[in-house]
Each structure stands twice: as structure tokens, then as C-alpha cells.
């Protein structure tokens, strides 16, 4: 669906922000993009949205170069939820907020409202049509932003740090929402700092470091075989402990639940012998 071929980008000459990046996103995939601040994660997504154009290389969407597209054109296919979504909200009601996109691309008012209603329902905000966006909780605002993106019926959803500032319960709720959307066939790219989310939710991870892709593959392998700290990532608790326990026969698991199971299995095995 989306393809980067040797893409480079820089704001100033000789100071590349992203260099020689190649990757493919397939329909319906759930991918995490991680890396320390300034590693080029956000630039990667800005390139996808055509907010910036590559200096070298090509970006293809459905086989066509995105060079001639403006961000508003990309918005018909790709939803992008910015970090801290309250900054983009400005309507008096949630439904108007969500209908903004469809109306901008020339959809009739009735259809836009219909689409907006559906999008609100998808994120679990049905009944909130007339709510005042500024009065919503952080978690609800975030879901409202997702609804705004979904109202354009995208095939790919990009989220930049969607869970920051939310309480743990809202966070869990939000991640379940993403799971649902993913199961319905939506491709998702999640930029996150939260390694626990990564370990528990996302199968494929792309690690960015100094403007290049340094890892692209399964999340489990990433934590099992790579020292992620050299890329500025924090090891999840389960990974740290799992590594320390492996000499004692406990199999590796990047998640807490997995580690508990492995620990128990090890003990049963020990007793069984």
C-alpha cells in the first residue's frame, strides 16, 4: 500500500533528518515506530502525509508517487492523529468537529454528518454528538481526534504518541479501540515511547535512530536479540528481568503475563523432572 524507496530528507543542506530510508507498509498491518526524540520518527510520518517532500528517493502510495499530492489529498486515504489533539479542535460540538474533514473535501452536509456519526460510534463516543469538545476528558478528546480521522474513511491511521498524558485506564481503553480498528482491516502506524505497549500490542516494529531505520521486524525478536538501549529505547520491565532469568532456564518473554507463564512453566518442568 505504502512504499518508501531510498528516501532522504533534510531541512538544511548537509544536515539530513532522514537518510536513505526504505520500507513497505502492507494493507491492514499494525506497525510501531520507535526511537528517541530527534531520531526521525515524526519526519517519517510527515513524509507519508506529504507535509514535507523527499529530497531524494520516492514515496509511493498504491503504486503512485505522492510527490504531486498535498496533505489534504493524502487525508482522503490516511488519517493522521497529532500529538495533543486538543490543539486542532475548534468547534462547539463533537459532531461538527468530526464532520470538518468530510466537509472540507466537498462532501455534502448530510453525508458529512452521517459519516461523522458513524465515526463517533466507532470510537465509542456515540451519544456525545453535541458534547463540547473542550469539556471532554483527555481520553475522550483523543478518541474524538481518532473519529475525526476515521470520518474520512482512511485505510491507514497514523497516531503520534496517542496515549501520553492519559491515565492508565483510558490508555488501556484506547489500545483496545486500536485493536478493534485493526481487526476490521485498518492499517495502523503507532509512534510511541511506551515500550510496554509495544511489547504487548504490536507485532512489527520499526526502530529509527539518527534518521535511519536500524531495525524493522518482529517486536519479540527486537527485544530478545537486540540491545535496544543503544538506540535510546528503554527496556520493558519484563524484558530486563527475562534476560536475567534466561541463564536459569526461564524462556524469554517480552510481556509480564508471558514471563509469569514462562516462570511457572519452568517451575513445573523442574518439578516434573
Amino acid at each position, binding site marked *: 500500500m505504502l512504499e518508501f524507496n531510498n528516501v532522504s530528507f533534510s531541512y538544511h543542506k548537509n544536515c539530513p533528518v532522514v537518510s536513505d530510508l526504505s520500507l513497505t507498509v502492507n494493507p491492514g498491518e499494525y506497525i510501531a515506530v520507535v526511537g528517541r526524540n530527534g531520531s526521525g520518527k515524526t519526519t517519517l510520518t*510527515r513524509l507519508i*502525509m506529504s*507535509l514535507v517532500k523527499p529530497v531524494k528517493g520516492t514515496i509511493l502510495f498504491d503504486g503512485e508517487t505522492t510527490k504531486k499530492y*498535498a*496533505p*489534504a489529498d*493524502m*487525508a*482522503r486515504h490516511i*488519517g*493522521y492523529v*497529532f500529538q495533543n*489533539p486538543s*490543539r*486542532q*479542535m*475548534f468547534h462547539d460540538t463533537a459532531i461538527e468537529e468530526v464532520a*470538518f*474533514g*468530510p466537509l*472540507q*473535501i466537498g462532501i455534502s452536509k448530510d453525508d458529512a454528518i452521517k459519516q461523522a456519526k458513524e465515526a463517533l460510534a466507532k470510537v465509542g463516543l456515540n451519544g456525545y454528538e453535541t458534547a463540547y469538545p*473542550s469539556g471532554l476528558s483527555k481520553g475522550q478528546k483523543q478518541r474524538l481526534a481518532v473519529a*475525526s*480521522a476515521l470520518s*474520512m474513511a482512511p485505510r491507514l491511521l497514523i497516531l503520534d504518541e496517542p496515549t501520553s498524558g492519559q491515565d492508565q485506564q483510558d490508555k488501556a481503553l484506547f489500545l483496545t479501540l486500536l485493536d478493534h480498528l485493526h481487526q476490521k482491516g485498518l492499517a495502523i502506524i503507532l509512534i510511541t515511547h511506551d515500550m510496554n505497549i509495544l511489547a504487548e500490542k504490536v507485532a512489527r516494529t520499526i526502530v529509527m535512530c539518527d534518521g535511519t531505520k536500524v531495525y524493522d521486524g518482529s517486536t519479540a525478536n527486537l527485544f530478545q536479540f537486540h540491545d535496544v538501549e543503544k538506540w535510546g529505547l528503554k527496556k520493558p520491565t519484563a524484558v530486563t528481568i527475562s534476560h536475567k532469568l534466561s541463564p536459569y532456564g526461564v524462556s524469554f518473554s517480552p510481556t509480564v503475563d508471558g514471563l509469569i507463564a514462562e516462570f511457572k512453566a519452568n517451575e513445573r518442568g523442574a518439578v516434573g523432572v
Partner: protein
Amino acid sequence: MFKVAPLTKIVFTMVVSLWAVALFSPLALSVVVGVQLLLMVLGRVEAKTYKATAYLALFAVFLFLLQYVFVPDTRLALVTGLKMMAMAMVFILVLATTRVQDLTAALVGQCRIPYEYAFMFTTALRFVPDFLSESRTIQEAQACRGYSTKGNIVKRMINFLAIVKPLVLRAISRSETMALSMELRGFGSQKRNIGSQVALGWHDYTALSGMVTVTLGIFLY
């Protein structure tokens, strides 16, 4: 600009404006502009100051043309352009050689401008870069939601509210935090100590008497 107190510079902006209004000779006005340019060079201002000055000069040319189109009198048009140049340049000169905070401190301490307004002024300046980057982010966020910049003037103007409204709302919600923080930090107490106040020295008196002499000269002449 050398060892002159901020207050003297404020007086300088007024005096130069007065000269520019009073003078009608292209030569005399050129001297005023020339002296300011010289002061810029002597004050070792940054490149962007010259850029601002050049921009101003462009505007002066535009004014010259405007004047000339309506009244084809080269001398009169030249006077108009130079007057504007002299009046606007002095602010660029003073701002390039003085910290804004020192100017406001002088206004509060020596001209008795109430502190609230000086604070309002510097705080507005403090938030300009923040809101500038915020406006870019908002523009991008809306673009990713399909924000379009097409259509006729009225439509584009109304559409632009998608950028302006979030900014204004952000300012309103920030104002509450800021007002609370101001009270926590004792804003408005009578005890306030008015930072560093620069008293006038012999440089200032020399400069001020120079300005008075020139002004008198212009008016008597």
C-alpha cells in the same frame, strides 16, 4: 548603541520623529537617515537589522511612487519617502541596540508607565515564538484533516478560522494558568522592586543636549 541609557534612546525615537515631521528638505532628511545608518554600522548590529532596513527602504520607494502617481513632483515624493524612512528606521536602530526589557524598565521606572502594561508588552513578545510554532502545527494538523486553501476570498477567509480559532482558544485556556501563576508569584504587590534602572550619566546628558540643540536649530531655522 554605546553607553547611552534606554531612556535617552526612547527620547531619541521621539526626537527623530519630530525632526522627520518638521523637515522638508530632501537633503536634511537624507542626513537624518544617513546618520542613523552610520549609528547602525557603529553599533555593529546584526545582518537581520540591515535586512529590515532594506525592507523598509522598499516600502519607502513604494510610497514615493504612490505619491508621484498622484502628484508628479519628484521633490515632494522624495520628501515623503525619506520622512517615512527616518521615522521607522529609528525604531529598528534602537531595538537592534537595546534589550526590549531595558526599554520597558526605563518606561516603568523613569516614565512611570504602570508595570502591568510593561508586563503585558514583554509577555506578548515572550509568547510570539511559541504561538508561531503552534500555528504551524495547527496548520499541519488541519491539513491532515483535509483543510483546504481553495475557493474564493470569503471562503478562504472563513476557512482560515480553522487555524485562528484553535490559537485563540489555546490563548484563552492558557490565560487562566498564567493568571494563577502570576498571583502565586506575587504579581501586583506594592513591594515590587523595579529591576535594574539605568540612571542617566554624562553620555546621556551630552546626547540629550545634542538632540535639543538640533531640534531648536531646526525650528528656529
